């Protein structure tokens, strides 16, 4: 297989990943690592570097639209970025000492978790009286625009959310993924933020979190231009196409199929990790 052929197949694979990731909301980055390691027998360290760059691309690309609409809670994002970037730097440091097969196993587990979370029923929380003093002091409570005017919301359990975000950051730095599922979980379930705000704010944060560990990986030589070129261009084009299709496509069955595929890839990553093939 020549480099030209390799690049073209990878471009198609990354396009599909970006398209499905954006249609299902699972993010394209999660399938890049299995695609590279299982599909193309690329060393997992190169795969992590590549996926990290791809997640910065998709996050920045889609965040630009949401920030303009005013749904993203920039203060909340900025505050929690202290947690995610600290975690990401720690994760990138741990990665040096962690055997690659262990990284593969953890990756598989996070992948299964992410696809399960996507099936979680999104029920908006009833406004309760328990107010967080810290949230008020940090001015995290905000509102987002909707068809019926601005909707106000309160942020709850700030320390718990902060702790969960640090963990999401470690996973992001260690595995080279955006760990959007963990971020949304922290904001939805712990901090009780409306999911419209949590998904867009999580997306907004992914780029910064990934950049914090990407600068370490770049210096370590994990980020290879030959892989980044087809993956970044493919994922971006796929995500863009996905955002155009989103209004027309019925994504329910697609999400199920994609989740099953992800689950299968995750099991294969775990299997290869245990047998020491990765």
């Amino acid at each position: 297989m020549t480099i030209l052929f390799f690049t073209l197949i990878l471009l198609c694979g990354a396009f599909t990943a970006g398209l499905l990731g954006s249609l299902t909301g699972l993010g394209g980055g999660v399938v890049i690592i299995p695609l590279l390691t299982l599909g193309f027998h690329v060393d997992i360290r190169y795969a992590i570097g590549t996926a990290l760059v791809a997640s910065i691309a998709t996050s920045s690309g889609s965040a630009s639209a949401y920030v303009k609409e005013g749904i993203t809670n920039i203060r909340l994002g900025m505050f929690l970025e202290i947690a995610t970037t600290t975690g990401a730097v720690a994760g990138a440091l741990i990665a040096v000492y962690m055997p690659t097969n262990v990284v593969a196993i953890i990756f598989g587990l996070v992948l299964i978790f992410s696809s399960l979370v996507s099936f979680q029923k999104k029920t908006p929380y009833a406004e309760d009286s328990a107010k967080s003093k810290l949230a008020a002091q940090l001015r995290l409570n905000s509102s987002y625009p909707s068809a019926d005017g601005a909707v106000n919301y309160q942020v709850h359990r700030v320390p718990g959310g902060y702790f969960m975000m640090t963990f999401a950051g470690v996973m992001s730095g260690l595995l080279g993924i955006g760990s959007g599922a963990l971020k949304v979980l922290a904001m939805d379930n712990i901090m009780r933020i409306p999911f419209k705000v949590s998904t867009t704010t999580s997306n907004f944060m992914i780029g910064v979190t990934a950049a914090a560990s990407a600068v370490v990986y770049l210096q370590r030589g994990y980020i290879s231009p030959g892989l980044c070129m087809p993956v970044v261009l493919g994922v971006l084009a796929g995500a863009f196409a996905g955002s155009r299709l989103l209004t027309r496509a019925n994504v329910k069955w697609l999400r199920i199929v994609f989740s099953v595929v992800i689950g299968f890839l995750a099991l294969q990553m775990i299997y290869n990790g245990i047998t020491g093939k990765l």
Partner: protein
Amino acid sequence: MKKLFSTYFRDKDIQQLIGKQLRLGVILSSAIVLVGGIIYLVRHGHEQPSYGSFTGVREGLNNLPGIWQGVLENKGMNIIQLGVVLLIATPIIRIAFSVIAFLLERDYLYVVLTLVVLGIIMFSMSGGLAG
């Protein structure tokens, strides 16, 4: 009430600016990656890829002076890497923008919090962590 509205609009302007900056960063860096990619494929497209075992990228692709040196020599790999570096810089520049934005809003608490985020990234960039 009037004051509330004026801060709301200023907030909106800044969000527009951040949105534009992110989009511009992504478009510009992918254009550079594409140009570098074409040069790389024309010159090396017929060779064999070797990513099976980890050796790290070749000398000069893992630091800014090295990347820039190669760009001046028109090396495809280095031009791609320049685009990648710009992509990584995009969210970091966004944070720097936010510092200015919060400063204009006189929200000094968030000026400090944003500087902390920027500080963590600078610390991680400083090189000592590359291992």
